[in-house]
Structure formats: C-alpha cells, structure tokens
C-alpha cells in the first residue's frame, strides 16, 4: 500500500509531539510535509524565558534538530506561511507558491499575541513575547540599555520582565488588574509575588491602563490613562493570545473562538484535524502545554488508525519560570458561598498556601514559596477524593498525613499512587516512569527523559523524576551532576551559566546570589569561582590571590619539603648560551640543589627557598627569561621539533610556528593546564597527538588535532581539520582555547571538556563557522590584554612582597630588625 500524504501547517510543540506519537504507532503510514512560518526547526516555546534571561541558549531548547526531520523523511518548508487551503482539490499553497497535496491535513497554526491597538502600537520597539524573534528583539534592546515597559502582569509578562531585568534593563510592569496573575493567583499570593519582584528592582504598577505609546520614530515612552508618562526604550505587550483561525475560516471550516473540533480533534472537515492553541474543543481553547500535548496524542491515534481516543478536559497547574520564585496554582479558586478556604501563612518565610474545598473535595490550590505539596493537592483535585478525614491537617501537606510519612521528599514520592502525575507538561505519571525504568533498564536522568519525556520540557519536576528513579533503582541510582563542593548543590555548569546570566562579578556576589551554604566557600570552590570570574569578566574582575592555590599565588611549584621549583619559559623549547649561563649562575648563587630537563622542553630548578624566589627571578629576568607558568592552570608549553630548519624530513617551520603560538597564547588562564606541540612531519617527534592541542605539519599545510591526554588517562587526539597557513593555525588555536575557557569546568582538561560538549560541536564552532571562530578569537585577544605580563618581574618590582618575607623573626643571632619584643600590658 502506498503511503498517504500528511500535511501539517505549523511547526510548534503540538504538531511536533503529534508526529512523535504518529511515527511510534505507524512509522510508515505517511509522507509528511510541514509548512513552518518561522524559519527554524521545532523548539520548546515554553523555555523562551530561560533563553531571555540567559540561563539557556537556543540550542538547549531545540526539540527536533535537522537530523530528526531528515531521519523521518519529512519535507520541512521553513519560513513558508500557508496562504490557502483548497479543500476540494486537497491542496495547500504557501506564500512563495509552494504547493502540497494531502490526504490528511493538520492545522496547527497556534495563536497570535494580542496587541492592544493604542496609539503608537506599531512603533519600532514594541514587541510581543511569542517566538524567538521577539526574544532576539528584546536582547538587542537590552544591549542598548534603558527602561523596558512590560504591559501585562500575567505569566508571560512577568517572565519577560524578570528576563529583561537580569539582562540589565530597568523594568516597569503595567497591569490592568489590581493584582498580578489574577487568573492563576489569588490576591494574597499576587501580593507576595509583587513584593518579591519589587525587591528585585522591578517596578510594578497594578491598575495601570495604557493610553498611548509615545515616540516619533521609535518607542520613547508610555502614557497611562491617569496622565503618568514612563520613559521607555522597549515596550513588550504580553496581554494575551488569540487563536490563529483566519486560514481555517477562509477554508470554510467551522470556527468559534478557535477552530472547532470534536473530541478526536477532527474539524468540521473529517480529513482535517486541528491541534494546539488554535484548536477549540468542547468550547474551550488552551494555552498551556499539557492539554496541547494531549490533543497531539489524540489526533495522532486517530491518524494512525481506528481509535477511541478522546480529549478530556483537565485542570493544568501553573508555574512561573523565574529563577528563585516558586508558585503553583491549580483549579478554581474564586470565592463562593458553597466553598471553604483553608489558608496557611508564614510571613517570616514569605510563604503562603490556600486550598479551596467544595463538598469536602479539593477544587483548587494556590501555593507560594514552599510549593512541594502542589502536586499532591493536584492529585486530590483530580481524584475528587473526599478529604474530610484529613481536613485538619490537609493544609500542612502530604508529610503530615497518617501512615507515618515523615517530611522526607523521597517518602512523599514513595507514597504517591502510580497514576500520580509527575511531569505536568507532558502528562507523565509515576507508574509510566517506573515501568520505563524497569522495562528498558534506564539508569540516568537523560535516558528517562529520552524514553518517557518526563522533565524534558520545563524541567521543574526534575527533582521528582530523580526521586522516582532513586526509589525504583535503589542504591544503584547515581544522582546527576553533584554540586561543585559541599558549599553548594549547583554544579560547575550551572554556576558558570548563572554567573553570566545574573551578571555576578565577585566571589561574595556569587556566594550570596547562588545561596552558598558556607560563609566564605572552601578550597575547592574558591579557586573555581576565581577562575570563572576572571574568564568571564576580563579587565573588570580583580583576581583574588587568596582564592588561588599557592603555586599560582607565588608563581612557582611547591615541593614536598615546602621549597619551590622554578621553570623559566623557553619559547618553543629553544634556548641559548646566554640563557643557559644565567641559569647556571643562578643555580650556583642560590645553591639550588637540582636541575632537571622537563618533558615539555624546559629546565626546572628544584629546591628553591621561598624567600629566595624574588632574587632568583630578578637574576633570570636580567637574562631575558620570564615565568614559564609551569604552575599555572594556563598555557604551559609548546613543544616542538626542529622542523624544516634542520630536519631532513621536516615539511614546515614547526619550531617557528611553536614559538609564535606560545607568544600568542602565554599568560591566559584556563580551567586546567594546556599543553601544545607542533611537529614538523607525521613522524611526530614532538608528540603532538597526545597534547591538548597539537599541530602536525604536512607538505600542504597544517593538520590540527586536539583533546589528547597522557596523564592519569591516556587518549589520542581527535582531528579538527587541515588548514593552509600559520595564521589560521594561530586563530584556531586561540579560538579553541577561548571556547574551552568559556565552557570548561575548573580542573577539566580540554579532552574532558570536548568529550562532554562533543567533538562535532567544537568542530562546528571553531573550524566550520568562520564567524563563530572569529568571535571566539576576538574575545581571546581581548582577555589577553589583561593577562600577558610577566608575573616574575612584577614580583621582583615589589608586588605581593608580603608573600616572601616572614612577619617577624625571633631567636636568631642576627637580631632581625622586624622583630619587636614587648611586654604585655
């Protein structure tokens, strides 16, 4: 049987999910064509707020990448808006004239943001908050700074406000109603939310009616009905959405508020389905993802065969995706004579919860602050269970119910029934997760996400999913990324992201804002934070010497007896009689016990007393020798062979290129040490194939390899590519170093970083995408401006003098001048 033709108009989350179900149930039933008005693949629209705030990137929120479309043989017309549906001929036509014939059609046109038609609403600088283009527009505005006015104090408006604030703009929220998020929150919770936002520096004006948007050529301000004028360089309208039904109406389908469908998601034309925000089922339209995914599943079942599947209405809990603000609301919480309220407030902790009962059944709940019990109330709401027996303790949450369940989150999850919903976005219940873990032998969060979709959308249920995993797998479950150290539960990646997203520029700021559990950190987190800040804010952040390991503080390597070793830099491994003579003199003068040649083609002076370091460096400096950074989480050495200068096999000037690379890269701080090598031919005498970055000279140019290791772990390098010129080698090495500097976790070598982020990712960003390579390169050059100075000569001239001298000396015949001996009072 030949395949039927399925055409989908719209490429949002609902049709994406529909296709996943369809391919699972009937992989070969349809040839699929998608028309997408947006010029991109399917992404997770509910995660736009973390993109705006900088906590995620667009790549993080892609649901289906190019490979997915290719793999399923889908024809995707990007940036192609559909202009007409010919139901007689069963043909869809796009704006540029592309046509597609269908046997079945799915209309998933979603919704359009509602723009209040006040004067000035068409000025440049007025945006909606709907898609990635809007986010890009907001980010551009945030770069220019100034004040953003967000019209609409609902879910989206507040997420936009928080995101713009974290991007450094002044933000005012205008809300027509007396309290924020009045559709999801009662006034008490709305008040707490407003207070929290105000404490973050966001101005909130409730009861504010916008009269006009002011400006000549672009937005300059907003005028309210009461005459108030607020300056603004950006206006974001987030006052609601309306289903996009024009296309369906023109095609003659039945349309109410949305495109009307039956419970099978079928429109008035039996060959046309509709899912998503544009669809109206049983008189309701939906804007939250959970019911949209349910629509997708129902439609997919009917498309894949005869099915009884029917859409059913369910209350969807609401959460706000603003870091640090926890609220949860579900169901109906309006007042009424037949309703009872149970309220618990804790002013000190700023927490509030209210459960609304009708006939001894939960019909709604609002939680602010501690929201852990939200899910339990939602379960009671869905089951319609009579709660009169637990009426007295209901408000305290599940932990206070009978059965001896202590205030232990694991126990609370253990107590949930199998059909308790864990992931609200995707409608995944506990039993389904347990089943997937057992049947498929899943052991990691990533696998559970891949197989069940649980916690794969907004991610707020990640902790619950992990609890279910822990209960199912027992001790074999290794929790996800551990915190950096005992001072925080956040992992290195989260800390790095939040430093950038929240603009944190000092160690105390990081510890305060990210809620460190210790007062001043520890020896694990402080050096990491110091590096992240130094790397992220070049020229702005002042290096904290006391947060550096001793070797980096005194620019020498501590030895087991408390003496130090000193390694001067020898560019590309080259030296001279003058340098060797100076080294020999220093060895004699300071009675340095051992002199050793290192693996990186340098000379190591071992056993130098700390107090002698400045004098040793002064003598070495005088001969032109500078610090070799043999102690640094930074560029160590560039090992070379003699190359075409001497070697009969050499193809290029490997020594010269090594020297150029070293002179370009030295002084930069990196997450862990960085070692390079340039070898003059594939015989590889400089051992480039086990270095962090290696260059292998060949007749036609330079092969660049990276990600090698020859320490605790042995790993050969991976090839990046071959380039023709030395300039390209240097640009690529600098760009790769910078990418690693920006993404690496402290103490994570290049090979581990590349293993983690993927060699394809590195290659795409550094070799293939010239613009991206250039941007990394330029950021590296900028950072080098602040780091290329010889730390030895700085200390010879007096920097950190205190490091090298005792505070006081007693009990020696020398009668030290620094010692004072005074009787106590």
């Amino acid at each position: 049987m030949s395949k039927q033709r399925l055409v989908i108009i719209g490429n949002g989350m609902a049709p994406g999910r529909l296709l996943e179900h369809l391919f699972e149930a009937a992989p070969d039933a349809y040839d699929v064509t998608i028309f997408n008005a947006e010029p991109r693949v399917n992404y997770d629209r509910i995660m736009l707020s973390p993109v705006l705030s900088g906590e995620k990137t667009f790549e993080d929120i892609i649901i289906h990448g190019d490979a997915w479309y290719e793999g399923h043989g889908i024809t995707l017309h990007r940036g192609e808006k559909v202009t007409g549906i010919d139901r007689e001929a069963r043909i869809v036509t796009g704006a540029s004239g592309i046509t597609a014939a269908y046997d079945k059609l799915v209309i998933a046109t979603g919704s359009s943001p509602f723009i209040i038609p006040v004067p000035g609403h068409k000025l440049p600088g007025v945006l909606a908050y709907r898609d990635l283009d809007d986010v890009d527009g907001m980010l551009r505005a945030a770069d220019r700074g100034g004040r953003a006015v967000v019209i609409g104090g609902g879910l989206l408006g507040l997420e936009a406000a928080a995101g713009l604030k974290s991007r450094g703009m002044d933000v005012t929220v205008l809300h027509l109603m007396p309290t924020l998020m009045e559709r999801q929150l009662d006034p008490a919770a709305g008040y707490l939310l407003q207070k929290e936002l105000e404490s973050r520096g966001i101005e909130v004006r409730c009861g504010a009616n916008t009269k006009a948007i002011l400006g000549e050529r672009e937005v300059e301000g907003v005028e309210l009905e009461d005459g108030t004028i607020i300056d603004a360089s950006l206006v974001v309208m987030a006052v609601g959405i309306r289903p996009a039904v024009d296309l369906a109406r023109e095609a003659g389908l039945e349309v109410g508020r949305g495109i009307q469908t039956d419970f099978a998601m079928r429109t008035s034309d039996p060959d046309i389905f509709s899912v998503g925000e544009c669809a109206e089922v049983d008189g309701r339209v939906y804007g939250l993802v959970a019911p949209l995914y349910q629509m997708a599943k129902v439609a997919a079942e009917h498309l894949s065969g005869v099915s009884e599947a029917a859409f059913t209405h369910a209350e969807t809990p609401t959460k706000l995706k603003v870091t640090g603000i926890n609220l949860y609301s579900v169901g109906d919480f309006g007042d009424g004579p037949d309703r009872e309220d149970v309220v618990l407030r804790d002013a000190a902790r700023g927490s509030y919860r209210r459960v609304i009962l009708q006939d001894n059944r939960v019909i709604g709940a609002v939680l602010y602050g501690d929201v852990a019990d939200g899910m339990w109330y939602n379960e009671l709401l869905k089951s319609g269970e009579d709660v009169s027996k637990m009426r007295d303790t209901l408000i305290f949450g599940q932990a206070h119910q009978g059965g001896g369940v202590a205030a232990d989150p694991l126990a609370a999850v253990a107590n949930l029934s199998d059909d308790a919903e864990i992931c609200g976005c995707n409608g995944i219940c506990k039993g389904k997760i347990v089943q997937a873990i057992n049947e498929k032998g899943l052991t990691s969060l990533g696998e559970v996400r891949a197989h069940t979709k649980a916690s794969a959308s907004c991610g707020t249920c990640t902790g619950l999913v992990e609890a279910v995993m822990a209960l199912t797998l027992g001790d074999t479950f290794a929790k996800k990324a551990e915190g950096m150290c005992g001072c925080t539960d956040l992992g290195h990646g989260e800390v790095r992201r939040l430093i950038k997203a929240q603009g944190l520029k000092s160690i105390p700021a990081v510890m305060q804002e990210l809620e460190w559990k210790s007062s001043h950190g520890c020896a694990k987190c402080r050096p990491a934070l110091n590096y992240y800040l130094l790397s992220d804010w070049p020229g702005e952040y002042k290096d904290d010497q006391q947060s550096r390991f001793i070797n980096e503080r005194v620019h020498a390597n501590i030895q087991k007896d408390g003496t130090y070793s000193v390694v001067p830099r020898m560019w590309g491994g080259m030296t001279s009689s003058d340098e060797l003579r100076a080294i020999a003199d220093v060895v004699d003068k300071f009675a340095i016990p051992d002199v050793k040649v290192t693996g990186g083609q340098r000379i190591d002076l071992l056993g130098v007393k700390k107090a002698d370091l400045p004098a040793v460096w002064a003598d070495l400096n005088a001969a032109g020798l500078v610090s070799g950074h043999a102690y640094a989480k930074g560029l160590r050495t560039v090992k070379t062979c003699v190359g075409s200068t001497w070697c009969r096999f050499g193809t290029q000037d490997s020594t010269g290129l090594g020297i150029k690379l070293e002179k370009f890269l030295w002084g930069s701080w990196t997450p862990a040490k960085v070692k390079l090598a340039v070898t003059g031919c594939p015989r590889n005498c400089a051992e480039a194939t086990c270095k962090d970055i290696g260059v292998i000279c060949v007749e036609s140019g330079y092969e660049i390899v990276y990600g090698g290791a020859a320490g605790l772990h042995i790993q050969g390098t991976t090839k990046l590519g071959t380039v023709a010129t030395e300039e390209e080698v240097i640009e690529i090495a600098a760009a790769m170093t910078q990418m690693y500097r920006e993404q690496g976790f402290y103490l994570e070598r290049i090979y581990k970083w590349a293993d983690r982020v993927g060699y394809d990712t590195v290659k795409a960003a550094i070799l293939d995408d010239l613009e991206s390579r250039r941007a990394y390169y330029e950021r590296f050059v900028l950072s080098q401006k602040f780091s290329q100075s010889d730390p030895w000569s700085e200390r010879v001239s007096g920097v950190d003098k205190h490091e090298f001298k005792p505070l006081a000396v007693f009990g020696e015949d020398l009668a030290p001048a620094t010692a004072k001996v005074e009787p106590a009072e």
Partner: protein
Amino acid sequence: MNALTRDTNAWRLIGSIDDIPSQGARCVKNGETTIAVFRTADDRVFALEDKCPHKNGPLSQGIVHDGCVTCPLHNWVISLETGAATGADEGRTASFPVRLDGRDIYLNLEPNLEMGA
C-alpha cells in the same frame, strides 16, 4: 605549664593585622620553628605551627576558609582554632596563643597544650 601560669613576658608584638592579607597567612620564625599566623575573612587571627600533621606541609601556604586552612600538599583541612585535622583525617598541629590589641597582633611563643582536655 598552661595559659594561667604562662610567663606574661612571652607575649610578643609581631606586627599589624594589616600586614596579613584577609584569608591569608604570614610566617613568624622562632629559631628552628616556623609559626603561621592566619587572618580570616572576619578579621580573627590564629597561630599554628607551620607543619601539617600529615606530611609537614607548610600550612601558611594553604587556602584559608571558614576557620580552616587547606594544606597545599595533600588537601588536609586543619582547624585554625585547635590545629586539629577535620573530617576523616586524624592529627593535630601545635597551636599558639595569639591576640589582637587594636590592629596589633601579639603572639605567645609557647604553644598551647592539647586543647579540649
């Protein structure tokens, strides 16, 4: 000998708290003995013999954090107050009486006897 009967002349002015970086240390030499004098983030001062109980690492070179110092050789964490190793490690380094008078630091060169007795 204990703190009460200690020779009061043993208190020595060794310098000012400003001579020690916050969350850092400086050394005082007393003949063969080196004493590390620490300054915490909240400007308290402590004095320990500059020898880790593990392998004699110079504690003065470690990172100072929350009333402790992490030895630079093998990351043992030593309490500044008692000189005792924290966590699973066992051992104690000698500690010395030290006090602040305004910004001046006075050190007693006679070590404390074992604490907690």
